[in-house]
């Protein structure tokens, strides 16, 4: 094996673009590893760990691009470098228009003088600075970036509340503001349900279900997973909920979050207790009685939050898309053997939800992100027993794009799980919408067929699709691809997990 490299000074690309190109080039024949990244501390550490570091990298800055390829011989490695360059050139061409492209927020604001929202997905160490600039200029901020300290989050949200501006995040993947889907969001129709959520995929699951049930939304405001912590004090949740209470277009409010810190819960309840409209609350894993005692509607899960909101918004009756009878019939069709269940999730909240629901059906569940009652996996890269895994967790996304964007990691893991003879059922999610991969179902089917062919094993496969008929990937088309490959397909995570429970009862 040889390592070839190329340095392009003062050439900046965002990390997602680079990680996707690196991932594609790694698949070429004769290539063992590829690091395509800016000269950040993390990438330097990775290069050293992979034994690909070169003395040329010593004097570089985070504005310099490194392409390092480990290949079977120099010709192969050099060809891979040329391939990276070609892909980078085509990216630059597609992202540049005839207009001069600004290189910072201030220059961009000179071109779009009345910009009122800044979508920030730069490396975490620079994200708070950009959010601060946005707020001081009177613009709302959505921080998709993670690795922003809680101290910075507190400072930004204090400033946001002072100015009446949104600070969505950090680590906020989903928002739909005034009908505009930002980052990872689905095409959801306008309506009268307003949502505030401290969970990206939770918000996607509830808004998509609301759409498929025939209703719509006013706003879907993401606040980031730490907003309801003691330290942040629910600053954005409270500000956004109060605004929805005052908003005449919003008839029903939905709140989704992990259970808040006790002091924050008291504060939040006192702020919204005089809401003159129904509030549906799903505090994941919390006792619904606490919510009901305050006069609010408690949802039992994400699907139920959507069903309850639709009922309250129209006064009509709504039921989940797949009834228990239908799910039971689907479970009767599959042949179950004794073995382990594996869940391979790209959505963190969906992974949490599956763990909670399956605890009654499985004696032991392991996870890399265990909820109460589940156990921590000893090796996140090798499953043992029943495992429900969040492949979007930091441990899997360091130096790699999120599994909703890049299916590579999960595809490999599916092949690995199918080849494990102890596995009798695999559950996974397919999240559609803006930001997500154009054909996740197709990628998963390819991996499943590869795993089946290589091992001869055929565990029961079930998928849930989080999305709407208006999403660009084609909702029906994605379902058809999965069903043609013999995969049981469900509209929600809850329906898929109920199916798993029914199958396990028959074991």
């Amino acid at each position, binding site marked *: 094996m040889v390592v070839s490299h190329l340095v392009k000074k003062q050439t900046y690309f965002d990390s997602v*673009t680079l990680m996707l190109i690196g991932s594609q080039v790694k698949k070429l024949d004769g290539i063992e590893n590829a690091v395509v990244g800016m000269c950040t501390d993390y990438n330097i550490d990775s290069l050293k760990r992979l034994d690909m570091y070169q003395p040329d990298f010593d004097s570089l800055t985070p504005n310099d691009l490194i392409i390092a390829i480990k290949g079977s011989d120099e010709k192969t490695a050099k060809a891979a470098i040329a391939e990276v360059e070609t892909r980078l050139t085509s990216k630059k061409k597609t992202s540049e228009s005839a207009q001069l492209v600004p290189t910072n927020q201030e220059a961009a604001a000179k071109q779009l003088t009345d910009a009122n929202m800044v979508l920030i997905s730069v490396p975490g160490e620079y994200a708070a600075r950009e959010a601060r600039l946005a707020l001081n200029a009177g613009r709302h901020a959505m921080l998709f970036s993670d690795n922003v300290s809680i101290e910075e989050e507190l400072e930004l949200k204090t400033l946001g509340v002072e100015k009446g501006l949104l600070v969505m995040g950090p680590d906020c993947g989903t928002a739909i503001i005034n009908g505009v889907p930002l980052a990872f969001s689905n095409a959801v129709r306008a309506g009268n349900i307003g949502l505030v959520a401290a969970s990206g995929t939770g918000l996607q699951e509830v808004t998509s279900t609301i759409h498929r049930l025939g209703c719509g939304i006013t706003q879907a405001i993401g606040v980031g997973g730490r907003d309801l912590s003691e330290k942040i004090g629910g600053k954005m949740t409270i500000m956004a909920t109060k605004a929805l209470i005052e908003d005449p277009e919003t008839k029903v409010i939905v709140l989704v979050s992990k259970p808040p810190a006790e002091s924050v819960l008291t504060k939040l309840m006192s702020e919204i207790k005089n809401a003159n409209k129904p509030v549906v609350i799903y505090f994941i894993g919390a006792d619904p009685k606490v919510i009901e005692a305050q006069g609010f509607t408690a949802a039992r899960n994400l699907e139920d939050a959507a069903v309850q909101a639709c009922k309250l918004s129209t006064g009509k009756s709504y039921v989940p898309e797949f009834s228990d009878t239908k799910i039971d019939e689907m479970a009767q069709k599959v042949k179950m053997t004794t073995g382990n269940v594996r869940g391979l999730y790209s959505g963190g909240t969906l992974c949490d939800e599956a763990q909670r629901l399956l605890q009654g059906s499985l004696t032991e569940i392991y996870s890399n992100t265990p909820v109460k009652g589940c156990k921590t996996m000893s090796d996140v890269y090798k499953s043992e027993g029943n495992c429900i895994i969040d492949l979007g967790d930091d441990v899997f996304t360091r130096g790699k794009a999120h599994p909703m964007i890049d299916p590579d990691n999960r595809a490999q893991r599916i092949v690995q799980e199918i080849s494990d003879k102890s596995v009798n059922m695999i559950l996974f999610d397919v999240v559609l919408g803006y930001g997500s991969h154009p054909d996740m179902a197709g990628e998963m089917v390819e991996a499943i067929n590869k795993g089946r062919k290589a091992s001869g094993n055929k565990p029961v496969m079930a998928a849930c699709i989080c999305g709407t008929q208006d999403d660009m990937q084609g909702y029906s088309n994605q379902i058809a691809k999965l069903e043609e490959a013999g995969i049981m397909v469900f509209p929600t995570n809850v329906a898929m997990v109920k199916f798993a429970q029914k199958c396990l009862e028959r074991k």
Partner: protein
Amino acid sequence: MSNLKDFFGKKVKVINLGIPSFADDLKRQNVEVIHTDWRPPAGGNKKIQALLDKVENWQNKVKAAKGAK
């Protein structure tokens, strides 16, 4: 202080810093968006960046004070 409620219903106009596909998605929906070819400020030198931020803060304070007069 403005009220968030007053922003509801207004046209969203976006500055995108970072992942280009987020801007592409918005363009496809005819949302006014400007993508920046963002790069770390001050050539990635954090000490210089901190100094520049200090100068900018100071300039903003001077501007605000002049405006108040």
